[in-house]
């Protein structure tokens, strides 16, 4: 990937982050911490990697993304809106009565969402089934699955991992959002998961750990995963819950937070400044 493309993806990520902050700011509260930590990975997937047609969300040959940590809906919606799946002004309706953008991603409500999630763990199995289905159909489309590090407490996650490995599903890539926090606190204190890299390797995955804020590292890892034949892939995203917004990072329990106007304004300033910086740099290459 050349420098220009890298900067373009950074710009896309910064835009997703800014739109995500706006969505939650409009609502006044929400699952912002875990939304902000997956932004760069979404930018790489939707900006570069995935085969998609936003005007035809049900296109048979498309690649699939399942956000099993469904509470990251706000980041997914920002990404989909920016790609043109639906009008940007839908973002103002996040979580409000009658919305198409509920708190957790819902296939029946949002164009571009391929699986309903929110009950943690379940997306790992449904994504696995989709990967198997595509393989059986002889399709070369790929499935990208996001799970949380806390979500990985669920036995179902590991049941799905076993299956992916047993059936050699090399058309699925698992992303673990390793942001070290879950709802009641740090993963280490709530339910220590040990070493994700070792765990997924032991489960038979081609496993890589990357800086989850580096679009280049994420992209390279996805390309490497493509080359790993005969086994599923796992990319552990080393991230921070609340990435890009200092006020949020400082809150210890930042899973679902109140986002009062003053804090939202500061957050908006910070993410907008970050976006401006990337744009400036991009203009110079």
């Amino acid at each position: 990937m050349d420098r220009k493309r890298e900067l373009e993806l950074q710009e896309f990520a910064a835009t997703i982050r800014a739109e995500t902050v706006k969505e939650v700011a409009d609502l006044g509260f929400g699952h912002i911490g875990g939304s902000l930590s997956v932004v760069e990975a979404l930018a790489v997937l939707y900006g570069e990697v995935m085969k998609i047609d936003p005007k035809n969300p049900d296109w048979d040959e498309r690649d699939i993304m399942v956000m099993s940590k469904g509470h990251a809906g706000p980041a997914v919606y920002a990404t989909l809106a920016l790609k043109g799946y639906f009008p940007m002004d839908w973002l103002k309706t996040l979580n409000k009565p009658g919305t198409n953008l509920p708190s957790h991603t819902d296939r029946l409500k949002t164009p571009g969402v391929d699986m309903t999630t929110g009950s943690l763990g379940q997306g790992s199995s449904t994504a696995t089934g989709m990967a198997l289905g595509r393989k059986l159909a002889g399709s070369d489309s790929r499935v990208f699955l996001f799970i949380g590090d806390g979500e990985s407490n669920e036995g179902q996650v590991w049941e799905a991992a076993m299956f992916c490995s047993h059936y050699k599903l090399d058309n699925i890539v698992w992303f673990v959002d390793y942001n070290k926090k879950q709802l009641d606190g740090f993963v280490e204190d709530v339910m220590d998961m040990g070493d994700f890299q070792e765990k997924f390797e032991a489960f038979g995955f081609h496993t890589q750990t990357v800086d989850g804020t580096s679009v280049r590292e994420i992209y390279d890892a996805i390309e490497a995963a493509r080359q790993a034949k005969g086994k599923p892939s796992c990319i552990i995203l080393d991230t921070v819950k609340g990435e890009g917004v200092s006020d949020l990072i400082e809150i210890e329990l930042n899973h679902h937070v109140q986002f009062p106007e003053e804090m939202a304004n500061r957050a908006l300033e910070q993410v907008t400044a970050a976006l401006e910086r990337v744009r400036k740099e991009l203009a110079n290459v």
Partner: protein
Amino acid sequence: MAGLSYTSINQTRMATGEVYCQTLIELAKENPRIVALTADLGKSSKIGEFMKQFPERFYQFGIAEQNMMGAAAGMAKAGLIPFTSSFAIFTACRALDQVHTDICYQNVNVKMIASHAGTSFGQAGTTHHSTEDIAIMRSLANLTVIVPADGIETANAVEAAVEHEGPVYIRINRGYDQQVYETMDYGYEIGRAVTLHEGSDVTIIACGSAVFQALQAARELDAVYQIKARVLDMHTIKPLDKAAVLKAVKDTRRIITAEDHTVIGGLGGAVAEVIAESGMATAFRRLGLQDKFSPIGLHEDLMAHHGIDTNGIVNSVRELMQLDFEEDLDWEDEV
């Protein structure tokens, strides 16, 4: 285990989950067998406060409800009284196999506190609504199923659950409940409905958040339409207070049930079974979700949408008053 005294003043300051937690803390001071378990919902369910008071009696399972329920069964077999705190949907659905075999079949002393029930977490979407759990839990042998009307009744239910030997499911809402009771002293008893309003024309049998609405409806029906409605707070779904249902049928001949739950198999289903087996002709209607998943929205809006708010209940009662039933049947012969 007397001595608890929650009043309306306490309740208005506390979400129902907080009342549950405070009650459990009080009870745990006297009963060392009580332990609290959660699955990464200590903050949401409010039981986190218990951890501060009794850190050595609090067990965090992470996001692993099935393991929590199975382990709770084992802990109960070892003589403890485990209180599990998770959302209703994950208690009744995700961990159902463990609840079925480990807890109910083996009849162990686990108390499941299922929060964010019905549509009370309406904004979080369908994965977080729990509108089938009463039906599911009611079908499990050995299990006592309680749906308190408000925070004060929750305190009573938690206290009664400790005294009761065997598995108990207590279904509570997210956030603050509208207040039905002023104090804890109204003779709460598992399996005994509370008559909140007397009436001879129709009986509204309600549970959970629908109880307050039913009571408001009864007052409005009386004041505006001169319809005299009896209101029963049917806090225990199992064992159901059959005598109270049969008496209502005899006295008022018209029955309406109201619940924040599907009309299939829950309170409405339970009451329907009693009425059908009694052989007594009754004008009858079940209010709740009509075999549908709920839309997304605020709890109060969803209650209105599903016709279980005051207005919805008033309208349904007025419709029911128009229905015919066999006026001159000699019911005493039939029963």
